[in-house]
Each structure stands twice: as structure tokens, then as C-alpha cells.
């Protein structure tokens, strides 16, 4: 019975299929850079950080500190299927947007915009976070409302302000595509039947966890090569981790985030209403205006900055912190500002050095390769536009 149903769906799909011939697409049998294919045929991350330890295995601390526990163990097929999905506009409601529209490899896996622009030109409300090193994260979105990459995926896919799709339309369009049916079968060989939403989310998560950036000049310094950082960058590192600036108290190495919710009191761009952030998710008035601490890896590649793009460049962000506690909090609003938000009175030179140091966190060695064509036959979203 089930077998018949599958055949029927397959026949329907073939009849209605458009775009390139299914045989044009194959999935890679090798793991992405940085991953070892184990005897079990899955991809596991390998990094020098695995030679270090961290307190309570939390992956937080100083230079030679291990990373937090991470997601890996997907098959090369699943990862490569995720890559096709990631770049395919068929995932959006009107076939114009892919994940890569807002997480563009040419723009630090973000989009270079203050706030993302969704379907029909909608303002998505917040900035697209970079996807670098999401394999190590436990919370997703600026307000930390999802606890897995799979759960995160439903946010943009089905938001009317973002990709504007529906669960039914997404499954219908993928199941109606013979290439995708074949590729999903390859990636999920033990699951018979039509493509499921969980398979889609798994494949996207598999691809996203391959986006690893741990080979910056800072990392070389960590692993023992003092000359990897310039004098200015080392000065910047020392200001960054000093207890005057206190940047590293929340942007904690090695990922440069401690993944906590912090109430910073950053301004909104002119004309934008105050964003309560995590308060709405956790129903905690004390977390009004709280957002997840973002990673600073590849930060020089992802301007503008803040949850809503209030800052055009990195120097602007550092200057904001240097202007003192609460300098942009709206009048008549009480926020429980984070205790590390102080009045550091850094000199202009120290501010410059921090910006210099942040530039040493850039590493895009493992940037993914966008496919030239995608199985839907839709034109892939253009990179860097």
C-alpha cells in the first residue's frame, strides 16, 4: 500500500516536474573541509581546539580553551543536500528567496543589511545573524527563542515577513520535484515515503553545521604562533579582555560568545520602536531589551551591527560601549542593564586597537561553494547583491 503510494507520488512528480533533468544533480560523497569521514560514513569535525579542555566542558574561557559541545555526525549526502536546499529559492513562498538571500557567503553568511528584507520587500524586523559556527550554539535567533537549528528553520521559512512559505506548499513543491525526491532518498536511505519537513530541517542543519570558522590569525596565535597577531592586534586583544573594556566577559573565547541573554541598551535606528527582545519570549520583565550575545568571529565581514543594524561599522559599536552605561536607553524606560556595561573611558587609541583586533577574527577558509544550479531549476539567488 505504502509502496503504491510512493510510486503514485513519484509518477505525479515526474509528470509535473520542471527544470533540469534529475540526473544533473549528484550529492558529494566526501565530507566538507575540516571534517573527517569516519568508518561509519559520517562527517566529524576536527580542530586543534579538541586538544584543549574547558571548565565543566562548557567551551568558555581564554586562549587554549576547548570548544563547546557541537553538532556533527551527518552524512556527506545530508550535508550536500542541505547545500542545495540552502541555495534554492524554491524554499520561499514565491520562489524569489533562498536561505542564502539573507545568509550570503559573499557577505559573511549575513546580508549586509541593517534588517533583512523578506518576501515582497517586507522588513524582517531584525538583522540576519551570521551562520558561522552555529554548530556550537544552543540557542538561535536574537531573542533565543529556538533551541535547535531544526527548530530555527521553521522561523524564516514560514514567517510572512521572511520567506513566506507554508508547510504544505514547501512539502508539495519538493515532493513534486523528482530530483529532490531522489536526493532525499539518497540522504535518508532508511526512510521510505514522501519527503518530510523533518528531513528538510535535518538537511539544512547538516549543511549549516559545516560552516566552521576556526582558522583566523587569532587562532594561530592561540595555537602558539606569537607572530600571527601584529603588535596593534595584541594590544587590542589585551584591551578587549581587560577588565576595563570587559568585552571578553560576554564575547568569551574561543567562540567569542557566551550565548547568554544580555541587556545592553543599544539604540534602535532612527524611527524604529524599542525592541523588547527576549522579554517577550521568556516573559521576564527584567530581560526587557535583552538579546543573545552574538559571536564576533568574522565580525568584520558582517556590518552593519546590532539586532537592528544601528551601527554602520565596528568602531561605532565600540564607541557606543565607551559612551557609558545606559547612554542610549530611552527616557522613562528602566532597563536591567548588564553589570558589565560600565563607563570604561577607553582612549581613542584603545578603541582603535579593539577594532584592529576584531579584524584578526576573520577566517573564511571553509566558505561553502554555492551550486551553479539548483534542483528546482529556479535561478539561484545572486551572491553579494
Amino acid at each position, binding site marked *: 500500500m505504502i509502496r503504491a503510494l510512493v510510486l503514485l507520488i513519484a509518477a505525479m512528480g515526474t509528470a509535473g516536474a520542471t527544470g533540469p533533468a534529475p540526473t544533473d544533480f549528484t550529492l558529494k560523497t566526501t565530507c566538507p573541509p575540516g571534517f573527517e569521514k569516519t568508518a561509519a560514513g559520517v562527517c566529524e569535525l576536527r580542530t586543534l581546539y579538541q586538544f584543549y579542555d574547558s571548565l565543566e566542558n562548557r567551551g568558555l574561557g581564554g586562549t587554549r580553551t576547548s570548544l563547546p559541545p557541537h553538532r556533527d555526525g551527518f552524512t556527506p549526502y545530508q550535508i550536500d543536500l542541505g547545500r542545495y536546499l540552502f541555495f534554492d529559492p524554491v524554499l520561499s513562498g514565491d520562489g524569489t528567496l533562498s536561505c542564502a538571500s539573507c545568509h550570503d557567503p559573499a557577505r559573511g553568511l549575513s546580508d549586509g543589511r541593517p534588517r533583512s528584507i523578506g518576501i515582497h520587500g517586507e522588513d524582517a524586523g531584525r538583522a540576519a545573524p551570521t551562520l558561522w559556527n552555529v554548530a556550537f550554539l544552543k540557542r538561535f535567533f536574537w531573542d533565543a527563542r529556538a533551541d535547535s537549528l531544526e527548530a530555527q528553520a521553521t522561523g524564516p521559512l514560514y514567517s510572512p515577513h521572511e520567506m513566506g512559505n507554508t508547510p504544505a506548499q514547501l512539502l508539495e513543491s519538493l515532493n513534486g520535484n523528482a530530483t529532490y525526491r531522489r536526493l532525499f532518498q539518497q540522504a535518508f536511505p532508511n526512510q521510505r515515503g514522501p519527503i518530510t519537513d523533518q528531513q528538510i530541517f535535518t538537511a539544512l542543519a547538516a549543511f549549516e553545521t559545516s560552516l566552521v570558522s576556526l582558522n583566523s590569525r587569532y587562532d594561530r596565535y592561540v595555537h602558539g604562533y606569537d607572530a600571527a597577531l601584529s603588535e596593534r592586534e595584541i594590544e587590542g586583544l589585551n584591551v578587549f579582555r581587560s*577588565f576595563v573594556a570587559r568585552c571578553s566577559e560576554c564575547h568569551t573565547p574561543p567562540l567569542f560568545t557566551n550565548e547568554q541573554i544580555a541587556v545592553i541598551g543599544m539604540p534602535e535606528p532612527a524611527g524604529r520602536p524599542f525592541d523588547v527582545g527576549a522579554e517577550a519570549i521568556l516573559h521576564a520583565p527584567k530581560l526587557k531589551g535583552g538579546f543573545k550575545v552574538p559571536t564576533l568571529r568574522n565580525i568584520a565581514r558582517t556590518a552593519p551591527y546590532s539586532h537592528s543594524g544601528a551601527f554602520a561599522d565596528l568602531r561605532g559599536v565600540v564607541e557606543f560601549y565607551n559612551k557609558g552605561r545606559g547612554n542610549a536607553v530611552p527616557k522613562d524606560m528602566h532597563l536591567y542593564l548588564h553589570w558589565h556595561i560600565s563607563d570604561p573611558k577607553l582612549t581613542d587609541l584603545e578603541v582603535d586597537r579593539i577594532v584592529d583586533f576584531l579584524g584578526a577574527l576573520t577566517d573564511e577558509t571553509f566558505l561553502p561553494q554555492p551550486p551553479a544550479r539548483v534542483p528546482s531549476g529556479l535561478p539561484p539567488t545572486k551572491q553579494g547583491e
Partner: protein
Amino acid sequence: MKKGLVVGVLVAALAFGAGMLFGRSGKQDLKISSSTQGASYSGGFKAEGEGAAPPGAAIRSVAGPAPTNVVVVKDGESIQAAVKAAPKGTIIRVMPGTYHETVYIDKDDIRIIGVIEAGRRAVLDGEKKLNDAILYSGNNFVAENLEIRNYKGNGIMGQAGNNFEIRNNVIAESGVYGIFPQLGKNGIVEHNVVSGIADAAIYIGMSDNILVANNDVFDSVAGIEIENSRHAIVEHNYVHNNSGGLLAFVTPGLPIKDTVDVIFRNNFVVGNNHPNFGAPGSTVSGIPAGTGILIMAADDVVIEGNVISDNKVSGIIITDHAHAQNITTDPESDPNSDRVKILDNVMLRNGYDTITEAKALLLADGKVGAKNLDIVRVGPSPGSCIINRHQYVTAGVGDFAECDFTNTANTVNYLLPPVPPREIKPGERGKVVYLGICTGCHTYNGRMIGPPVQVIQALYMENPQGLADFIAKPTKKRDDYPEMPPQDYLDPETRLAVAKYMLQVTN
């Protein structure tokens, strides 16, 4: 600021009052225990395959055997220059003199040892311009015999270094924290004299297995603070004229969520009445000046054998997050101080000028006319216990049980023997470097940024050293590929290991 920590107490006070009227009446029988007899607290720390010493063995050193390589820094020279030049496993002796610098240590087994001559020390002077005196992230770090003054950030700050020893230092007027190891495991902070610090003189943050002993801390906002840390013993310290003496806190919003198993014993906690000069918004700015010991949301804190006297608000305050006005919230942190254990202490003349809210609590507890206050508890504190409670003036501890032990004699310390460095086989390192770095540009048989590994194998199969040498100083070999960036940041041994690994991969 005073009001911050105990706002909302009045509501609680009314509730206690009702309890007094209708509940208890008459004098309780005295239950008297001897702390020289009876069971001993066994501690909360169970070593888990870490090669820990058997309980009872005193550990005096955690940083391992002293290195034999010694360099000397003289007045007028740079300590940092010596650190930079030092191989791991070096003692840097710093001669008396004045050094204006920030010293950072990002490698293992470095010891910075001041030489004291006729009372003259090596002085690190930040002149109120420099941020921190010492920043370390390396393991097995030791700092001894230094004098540190006039820094704006911290005196000595650790970020994730394990097995640290910080002793015999004099730190004054040096910013936010005097000594602040953070995210470290297995450390000793002892025999330091720390004063004039705008937050905690000694602050153990998010760290495990710690001994803080024999320090003299004074004239600071907080004396010794154990925050979001586990298995810490704080003993034999002289803690005086701070706003708050000893603190065991859970600060919400940190990535490590609890404070568990802290022993405060045999300390002198005396006259901690200094006006609170904590920075606005800092956690400690909410401490009522005049607090001997403050427990906020920490679990399993044992208080034993201390002399706690002349702290004008209270000898001990036990509270939770809800009663602290300037404390944020964290759904992942338990806001209550669970299982506080108060054993025998000498408590004299505390609470002689306490705050209004505490007076209300005393009244509610039926302590009409009390002129002192030794222990006050606001907020839930489930599972707590006390012995010989009749000797203290208390408010809010009526529901504490009798402890089923009277002392901590069996818990000598929570330190671990020096953990030998992890052995990493060259082959393993070669594989990880190959996968973690080389594969960004090279695949086995395809064209990427660099040529395929198969091609490299054909060229170097019998010559791994040649390949190791090439990657240190690559030259442009192929017109159709970009020149390879040098991999000289890898040490020679690692370069050879990765070359050998690359030459044998098969896919």
C-alpha cells in the same frame, strides 16, 4: 543602595509576624552540640576519575614541579619581553624596582616570581593609566611576591588557566578586582594582602576546586567573593573594613549557572562597615555596608569557626535573587540559597546599626528590643540547618533544621594534584591539522584553491621532511594556482606530522 538587597522584606516580615502570634510561644529548649565531637561534613566534591588525592591529603601546590629554566628581569627591563621570549616552563624572577606594564601570559608553565630584597618588592605600577597588571590564560601559572598598584581594571586576572597559584602578593588601589581567576580549575590564592578595590578584593569567578587562604583583605567593597563556582574553601583569612566581607553568590546571566559547596571557615570577618563605593550597576553596589557574610542563591555553603564581629548590619545575610533589586533574572539559575549550613562561629556585636527592613524582621521574629543581629535570612532557603542556634541573635532562621554534623574536619581541601599535560601523539596532531587547516584549500583528488593531495603525494611521497619544509616557506610553483600562504605558525614537529599524514591519506 542599602535598600536594594532587602526590598520586599516588609511583606515577608508581616508573614513572619503572623506566625509568631499564632504559632510559636514560650521558650524553646536548648539543643546543645559540641563541634569537637559529632559527625563531620563530608563535602560535596567527589573526584571523578581525575586522579584526585584521597580525602584528607593536604595539597600545597597545584602547578606541578617548578621549571628549571630561570630568567631574571631587572629594574628598567620589561617583564613582558621576558615572558614573550620564554619557552613554556620558565621561572621569571623579577628584581625589586618599578615596572609600568601590562603582562600577559598565553602559554603554559610560566611563573612570575618577585624577588624581595630588604623589604623592597618588584612593583607593577599602572599609574592609573594601564588596564590590568597581569592577564593570564596559560595553565600552571604562578604569581608570587609582587606588589601591584594603580591599575584601572584588575590586578591579576586569569581567563581559563588551570592549576594556578597566586600568593604573597600585595595589591592596592588596583581597580575592579584585585585577584580574579575566571573559568579556571584547581587554584590556590593565599597569603595576599589586597586593599582599596572597587569590587571584590579576591573574586573567584566561574571556577572549580579552589583554595582561598590566609589572605588579608580590607578597605574594598567586597572582601572575598565566590561566584558561580563549585568546591571552594575559604579559610584563615582576615577580612575587615570592607562593605561586605565574605560573599557566596550566584550572579544570573553567566554561562555557568550555580555556586555549590563553599566552605567559609576559621576566618576573621571583622568590622566590614566601609561605605559602599561599588560602581553603579555592579552587583556588589547593592551590598548593605556592614555585612559580614552574604549568601545569595549559592547552595551548600558551610559557615564554621569564623570570628564574625562588629559588622553593623548583620553578621550573616542569607538571601535570594528576588530580594535583590539590582539583580537581573535567569530562568536557568535557581534563585534561592539552598542548604546553608551554619555551624559554630564566634559572633559578637553584629547588627548594632542595622537597616530598617532587618529590624522589622527581628520584630517579626519576636526579638523585641534586640540590639544586635547575627544572622538574617530573607527568601526561601530550603534544606538549611544550624547548630547551637541559641548563641546567635537571628531573624528568619526559625525553620532551619539541626545539622546532622558539627564540623568540617574531614574536608581538608578540594584541590587536585597537578594534572600532567595531555599526551598528544604526533599522528593525531597531524590528522587534526590536516583536516582542520589543509582541507580548506586541498581535496584528495579535486581542484580547489590548491592542487589535489594526490598530486602532492606524487611529488613528496618519499620526502615528508621536504613537504614540511615547503609549507613553512612556500614558493609559487604553479601558474594556475595562487601561492600558498606560509604555515610557519605550526611548529616544526607539527609540520612534519601533518606532512606525514597528508602523504598517506587515501580519500
